[in-house]
């Protein structure tokens, strides 16, 4: 296998450290609480992609594989990105009036609830008690 002459213990360890740093980064981005949530989303997803690339390239040895990797992964990637994109105009944004009571009647009720409960009571730490 092609990677053998390339691979070394150290190499992997560097990748490993990089992955840990990336994970830390995404947590940091979350804690930073940007004004615009979109920034966080873009940042953490970018980090995720970077991590995925690291794992695929080095841990899964794709960097050292032949061209078949493109034949296999290119269509997969296209389909994987294309499917959500194609669903978007229908499910993500509704062309016709959606009847989700959550957005309508219930929504108002919830807004009132949230307003009255702001910051009160529920300070329990999430999870695992």
């Amino acid at each position: 296998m092609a990677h053998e002459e390339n691979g070394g213990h150290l190499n992997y360890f560097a990748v490993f450290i990089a992955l840990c740093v990336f994970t830390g980064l995404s947590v940091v981005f979350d804690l930073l609480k940007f004004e615009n949530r979109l920034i966080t989303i873009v940042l953490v997803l970018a980090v995720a992609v970077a991590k995925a690339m690291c794992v695929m390239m080095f841990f899964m040895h794709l960097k050292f594989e032949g061209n078949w990797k493109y034949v296999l992964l290119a269509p997969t990637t296209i389909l994987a990105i294309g499917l959500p994109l194609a669903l978007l105009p229908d499910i993500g944004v509704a062309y016709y009036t959606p009847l989700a009571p959550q957005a309508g009647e219930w929504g108002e009720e919830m807004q009132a609830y949230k307003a009255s409960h702001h910051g009160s009571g529920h300070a329990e730490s999430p999870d695992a008690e």
Partner: protein
Amino acid sequence: MSSHAQQPSAVKMGIPIPDSKLGMWLFLGTEIMFFTAFIGSYIVLRLGSPGWPTSSEDTHISVVFGGVNTFVLIVSSYCVVVAHEAMAQKLFGKARQYLLITFALACVFLGIKSMEYYGKFSHDIIPGRIPETPTQAIAKVDRELETVVRARFAVYTDGEDEADVNVPEARDLATVSAQLDVFANGDEGDAARRETAKADLRLYSEWQNLHQHIVANVSLEDVPQAAGPGYLKAREQLAEGEALPTLKIGEVEGLVKKLKSDVDYGPAVKAGVFDPHPVLYGNLFASIYFLMTGFHAIHVIVGMILFGLALGSKLDESWTDWVENSGLYWHFVDLVWIFLFPLLYIV
């Protein structure tokens, strides 16, 4: 194996990687599409749902848990690589060692995951059971309280040896309560039991107040027979035709808190009634959370089985491909998590 192994095989056509590895990669291709369906559905459903719950108060999701688990998986991925490397260099002892670590880390991952699940369960964050409005939350408290009352009453009716309260069935709670009343205020039977009966009657009437308020908020004439005293008192102050003001969730929260702190039936209420906490789109959120993490967990378990098989054997050269391929699979499991983590825990 088959008869052709002995023959001088001419060069087969194909690409220079072993069948098993090619098969594994193709399989991973199908796996990518499998998770694409989940993740894609999640993304579009979420975009199509204004008001998705994000605060950890609603979702009980903690970045810390997710982060730690991410870290655990990364370490395990690293160990697999090292193990594979060791296999290639014929250092089987070292490989075994690292595989063991991987296996252990997988256990840690599942452990943390189950803690998270447990946390969700303990707040009844379960698809289909999350109230999405204050009204639904109140109705849910009502239902849960009723279950508690029934369970408490069942003690008097089901236990055949307890002849002191003679009530045939708990279905009609009003009748049971009437008979219990007689029993509790009489002097027959066990004194301690009479005390519990009194407590249960109090609980019953608390529940009735709540219940009537929700279901029978009607004009004065048709006040239901089994209405609780608190409810009746409230009604008396109204003029004909007026309705009681609708319950505020705050009042119900207060009620639940009060019931839970009662010395007699408090523990039972605590066990059976969740704090009312409506979450808009909570059910969809919970559906997605459990389905995605659940299928990821199943993949983790499959990975553990693969490693387990290798560990259970005497690891030798013939296992090199096995370790490589299960390693590939494991990295894929890691990959999925790498995307699930930001998507579920942060975004």
